[in-house]
């Protein structure tokens, strides 16, 4: 097995080759919060040649969650007085409200709302069973890797008092939108290993096949990420693009068929709003027929709040859109 130092040596040699000397920078985008975390933790940016730029794309479920939905979740907790459960990383994301009003779910809890962080859909079911007389709303944000467990939760059967405010998003449609926009802002793509574990590698094959850009699916160790970086550099150097699977231990053709079947059974693909980006066709999920009685957006419709900025607005100073579109470097 090739180790990190060996991969780095190969990458350095390739970056000094004539193919890259003519390019000022080679920009590689990742679309996974886990990749970004590993890249940062392992210090990969410092270790790579200066001409290789690693840019984070729209791969953070918190950054892409539209603020209207967070505002809706706050309303459900404070106005509808339902118990609101969500993954802990959503608690501190701010929304547009007048000064002095509740702007995060954490503040909603401070203001008397029953807001509880959870680590799994299994906990949402347990809490709903413990509170049979109260509506419990699971505000579920995430990508395919989270949508599949939510689908499993629904398919396995949930109590009548459990509702889902679905904020799940699909990864490939947003990357496809970037590629079709003509301002993709990257020369190669590192595709998300766990999304491909669930959905299969196939959808990412359009990156080289249709858009002529190198692509590789990576896992989460420095070795796997460096292998993917080396792969896309080599593809560019040789002028031969293909989708390389650098995470074969988990990414198999067709992904996880049982997970895809549960997704297809309980949810259907819909257009969706992305924070700071706007509506992207076929990039979100909504509950399918047969599951709508658990739709929190139907059970607790959003009430208009006077003074709020129009949908799609961003809080002052929020650079999420620039970051997720690869046009701004995160701090």
């Amino acid at each position, binding site marked *: 097995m090739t180790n990190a130092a060996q991969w780095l040596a190969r990458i350095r040699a390739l970056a000094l080759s004539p193919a890259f000397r003519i390019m000022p920078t080679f920009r590689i985008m990742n679309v996974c919060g886990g990749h970004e975390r590993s890249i940062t933790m*392992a210090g990969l940016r410092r270790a790579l040649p200066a001409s290789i730029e690693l840019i984070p794309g729209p791969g953070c479920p918190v950054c892409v969650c539209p603020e209207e939905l967070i505002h809706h979740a706050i309303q459900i907790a404070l106005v509808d007085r339902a118990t609101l459960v969500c993954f802990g990383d959503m608690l501190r994301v701010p929304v547009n409200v007048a000064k002095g009003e509740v702007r995060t779910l954490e503040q909603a809890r401070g203001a008397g709302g029953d807001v509880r962080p959870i680590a*799994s859909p299994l906990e949402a079911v347990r809490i709903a069973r413990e509170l049979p007389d109260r509506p419990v709303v699971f505000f579920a944000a995430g990508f395919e890797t989270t949508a599949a*467990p939510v689908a499993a939760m629904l398919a396995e059967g949930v109590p009548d008092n459990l509702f889902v405010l679905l904020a799940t998003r699909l990864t490939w449609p947003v990357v496809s939108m970037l590629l079709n926009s003509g301002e993709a802002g990257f020369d190669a793509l590192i595709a998300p290993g766990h999304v491909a574990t669930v959905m299969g590698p196939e959808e990412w094959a359009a990156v080289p096949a249709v858009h002529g850009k190198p692509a590789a699916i990576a896992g989460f160790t420095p070795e796997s990420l460096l292998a993917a970086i080396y792969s896309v550099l080599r593809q560019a150097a040789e002028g031969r693009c293909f989708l390389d699977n650098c995470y074969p231990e988990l990414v198999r053709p067709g992904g*996880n*068929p049982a997970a895809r079947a549960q997704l297809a059974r309980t949810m259907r693909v819909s257009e969706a709003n992305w924070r700071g980006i706007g509506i992207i066709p076929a990039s979100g999920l909504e509950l399918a027929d047969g599951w709508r009685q658990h739709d929190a957006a139907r059970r607790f419709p959003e009430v208009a709040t006077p003074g709020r900025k129009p949908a799609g607005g961003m809080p002052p100073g929020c650079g999420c859109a620039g970051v997720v579109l690869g046009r701004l470097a995160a701090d």
Partner: protein
Amino acid sequence: MEVLAIDGLMARCGAKGVERDVSLFLLQDQTVAPGDFVLVHVGYAIQTIEAQEARSVWELLDEMMAREQTE
């Protein structure tokens, strides 16, 4: 994580001294037994993984964490 025990569609799984209850609902079309390794996301096993691969990933992640802590 390593599957330690299975009760219906739930499994007790362990990784590096931490134990969790994990749903096997999304692996119903695969045979999973104690001693197998699974990739877990938000409490659900989403894929099986060879034991050797899982151990080497653990080692690499340990190395990464250790490096971060010393920096």
